[in-house]
């Protein structure tokens, strides 16, 4: 373990690290992809959260599919 110094050492590893991304979409389903294709770059994914709100409870149009 290293030495922790007040006012200078960072708590980076102990912090909750997250990215809040704003999206706009209306539909019945969602699917998320995370990707990276860079040399010598790390990637560690811990989880995610998806924000949503309900819209009209009844369908108003016939689906095209």
């Amino acid at each position, binding site marked *: 373990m290293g030495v922790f110094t007040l006012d200078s050492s960072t708590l980076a590893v102990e912090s909750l690290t997250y990215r809040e991304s704003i999206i706009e979409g209306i539909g019945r*389903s969602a699917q*998320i992809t995370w990707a990276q294709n860079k040399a010598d770059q790390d990637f*560690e994914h811990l989880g995610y959260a998806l924000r*949503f*709100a309900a819209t009209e409870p009844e369908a108003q149009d016939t689906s095209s599919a």
Partner: protein
Amino acid sequence: MTTRNGILSVYPALGGLDISNPTIIDPGSLVTADNIEYLSMGQRKKRLGMLQYSPTTSVQGTSTNVMVTSSSNVRGLKDTWDYTGSVPVQRLIAVTGASIFRSTGDGKWTAVSGTSSFGSNATLNCHITQADNKAIISDGAAQPIAYDLATTTLVSPTTGSIWPIFTGSVYHQERAWLWGLTTVGSTWAVHPSNVVVTAAANILDSTGADAVTLSIDRGDGDKVIGMSQPFYNNIYIFKGPNKGSVHQISGQTSTSYVKTKIATGAAAVNGRVVISTPTDIYWLSDYGCHSLATTIKFGDVDQALISLPIQNLWRKNLLSRSDLSNAVGFWNPHRNIVGWAVTPTSATSRYWVLVYNYALSDPSPGGRKFWSIWKFSRETAANFGITSIAHIRNPSGGFLSAKVGEDHIYWGTDRGMVYMGDYASFSDDGAQYPVTITTPIMSKFQTAAGVIPQTQEKTFTGVVTFYNASDGTAQGSCSMSVLVDGQNNSDAFLLAAPGDTLG
């Protein structure tokens, strides 16, 4: 309408790859898990890279140190140790093309034999076994030979007759168990269902009084296609490739061996896919991946279930079924994984590795499994195929001096080259490789006001990505995309450490 707002939180995400159907699986699972490994709490982390076995790291991406030619197959690879003196001496051995090579650990290979002295480049089912301070080299086609680790010379049996031609061997009770016998080119009267067990303390004596030949269900439509390493004082013989069966051999002496058939079906596709670990034996068949512990505990009908989440690889022929006979497996103990290199359909080389984290997975039927697929591509236009795999303790002869003594997986390839895996560089011999994870298609959500069913539309407003900041390398980047009924939203960001100061 605020009560109609909701958030689906999948943190921590505890799920592995499941390609059965993206619309009906758990939101914690993944439908794509390319080039990741799972850490101890299920975190999805970019797999480590690889580095070519060469005297210097400056030749990454080149073919400077090929054995034979840059299109030769490294058919066999093994970490062996001469321990006849007080200090063990490491001997790395490779079989490439039709030659046997050795290395002192300096990143270079030296031919032990002449250029055409052992088998042919096309015979991939090559095995190297350390036994009685020798390395037994066999491939089921050429006359087997041994490499004496003390004298660093090739030796052949002189006690009794010559060895039969066999595919592989296992060292058990100070005897060599020779399996995969072939009558082609052999002077022996052998049967493919036989296993020849040499005399104790003399692996070169396969015909003397203490040697024995075991018959394993002769005439059942199969040959002996593989063997496990010794496992809780027993040894397990696999028959295939048509019907499949597993036989347990117990007993301490050559006159007291007892054979018990413990499983039928799920024939191993070759002997190099049988993976022995201290707690289980895994293998690859023509219809899935199997665990001996799961098979014995839950019965034959559940043999395939450790690969159930990725069963579509077989069912939809996403793997080259015809090349499974050339697949090769490995065990990486310090990453808690086993895996098999296979060829995807329409490809010509084994550059996919199916990776199973046995420490996180529940092996019982229906239990959660943690699979991922590693896709190797050293260079954009020159994917290589894996032709052999070995678990090697990094040598002290000069190769990567900062990593001496570490155990790593080494990949033998169809480029005449060997690469050290688990290289903390996040590059494949200097080249980038993509990491991709994808959630299932999520359509049913819970809010305080109740369930929003699949049939109801939703407004999606945001995604929160939880990650761990880059681990001692350049700050990682990430691109995220969200498909809402096929319409794309995207964001790109750095996996930065926000941190904070205390005071």
